């Protein structure tokens, strides 16, 4: 097979980009908010992040060894999955629960479906939802920043307007509020997003459509769009999770449909559902629809005429 491939005459455009390079860029983009989360929520947050990454990499290694597959740890994708999962967890979660999440993400969601490039959903999102369903108590216990006070309320809880909201925009934007480890600082997440967009790792279409839809819908429904956009996991999800190559559409139109769909589902869950946060469910649902979105947004070859039309002329 390899010999046949090597004598073919097609243009061999090779790009210096590798999976490992892309994943490293994502890790770099995630670093500011990860470090900020560790400062904000202290040693426990760092322990959660490290546990998630180490367990994810170990799971990948053990799976490859057990099934005698080539070692895929070096492509860094397990590191990204572990880090993203850790940033999506509250800092007070018991470490063994975080570890179960990592194993689930790598083994069940990624490797059992064929490894990198074949997962049907974003592993970190699926693992977060699995943990949320399994351990609802520890997944909704958030810490107040720079203190050991337990608070069960992220700013999203106030978005309904039942309680008066005390955080001004600045607190929300720079992330001095309760929440998951990596979701609080909108500013640092946007810095990461900018880095990825400039390096052309992600296209801005999905995050823009996703965040824009949520903002627009909350504005129309009379909620404070500032809280909707900056108060929860929206930016983390829209920039780093919804843009996963395997689980997002290929074409521009597809990406837009995907982003808007994520936004609508997020808004509907937040507004009408029993949960305060809907970003992860929205992304998971749209992940599953990606093959169908791709099918409906196939790009037409240049000069293509529909067979029916040709006859009419």
């Amino acid at each position, binding site marked *: *097979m390899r010999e046949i491939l090597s004598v073919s005459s097609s243009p061999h455009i090779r790009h210096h980009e590798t999976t490992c390079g892309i994943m490293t860029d994502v890790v770099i983009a995630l670093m500011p908010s990860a470090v900020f989360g560790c400062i904000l929520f202290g040693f426990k947050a760092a322990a959660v992040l490290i546990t998630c990454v180490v367990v994810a990499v170990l799971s990948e290694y053990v799976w490859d060894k057990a099934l005698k597959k080539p070692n895929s740890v070096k492509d860094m994708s397990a590191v990204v999955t572990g880090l993203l999962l850790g940033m999506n967890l509250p800092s007070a979660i018991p470490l063994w629960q975080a570890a179960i999440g990592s194993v689930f993400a790598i083994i069940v969601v990624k490797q059992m479906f*064929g490894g990198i490039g074949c997962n049907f959903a974003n592993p970190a999102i699926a693992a977060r939802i699995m943990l949320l369903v399994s351990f609802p108590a520890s997944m909704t216990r958030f810490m107040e920043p720079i203190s050991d006070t337990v608070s069960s309320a992220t700013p999203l809880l106030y978005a309904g307007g039942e309680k008066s909201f005390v955080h001004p925009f600045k607190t929300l934007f720079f992330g001095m509020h309760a929440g998951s480890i990596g979701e609080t600082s909108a500013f640092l997440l946007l810095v990461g997003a900018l880095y990825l967009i400039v390096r052309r790792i992600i296209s801005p279409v999905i995050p823009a459509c996703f965040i824009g839809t949520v903002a627009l819908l909350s504005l129309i429904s009379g909620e404070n769009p500032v809280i909707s956009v900056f108060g929860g996991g929206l930016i983390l999800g829209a920039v780093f999770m919804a843009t996963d190559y395997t689980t997002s559409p290929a074409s521009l139109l597809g990406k837009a449909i995907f982003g808007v769909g994520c936004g609508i589902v997020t808004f509907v869950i937040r507004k009408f559902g029993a949960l305060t946060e809907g970003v992860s469910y929205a992304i998971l649902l749209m992940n599953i629809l990606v093959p169908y979105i791709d099918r409906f947004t196939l790009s037409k070859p240049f000069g293509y005429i529909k067979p029916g039309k040709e006859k009419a002329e």
Partner: protein
Amino acid sequence: MNNKYLGYFTNGIIKENPTLRLVLGTCPTLAVTTAAVNGIGMGLSATLVLVCSNLAISLLRNVIPDKVRIPAYITIIAGFVSVVQMLVKAFLPSVDKALGIYLPLIVVNCIILARAEMFASKHSVLPSVLDGLGMGIGFTAVLTLMGAIREILGAGTLFSLPITAKFIDPMIIFLLPPGGFFVFGILVAASNALAKKNGKKIAEHLGCEACPSKGVCGNAVKEAAENEQ
């Protein structure tokens, strides 16, 4: 001769286990196995119906006209299900409550209909009864195993006795539908791996061919490419 009858009996337990090898009766398998005791209850009820219906259908196999055999089988099965349902309601009300709608739904359990069609209608009485018994025991065993796994992981108990509930938070997801699919999938995979190791055919694998997303899913494309090589 004895060996042959033993074969009819053991066939359903391992070699053609209805849930893991024939992949039949998936609905009750997923729905009622939230606790080990439910698995036993469902399994034994189905076994009783299976043995009785196999017996009756085998006796009547030369009388039932071929064109209306399915309605005839269903009528016979429904009769026995009614008997079992009344018995369970009267003597084990807690099991009846736990199984809910899935107890009367044994009428349309494909294991029972499949054994009637594939076995009882072509064999004499004794083999049919033994086949029904074996299939029923295989079904019960898998349901109990799944119920036990889901109960230990999801509630920390086994047969309602606390195992890990005191020192580990149970993972509630295993009591919910997704947990049922996880455990079922992994058990089928494990039984396939065992079958492969022993050189047997794996459970009928329609694989990606049967999936509506096959043309657009990465894994399906990969599998097709592997098959071509």
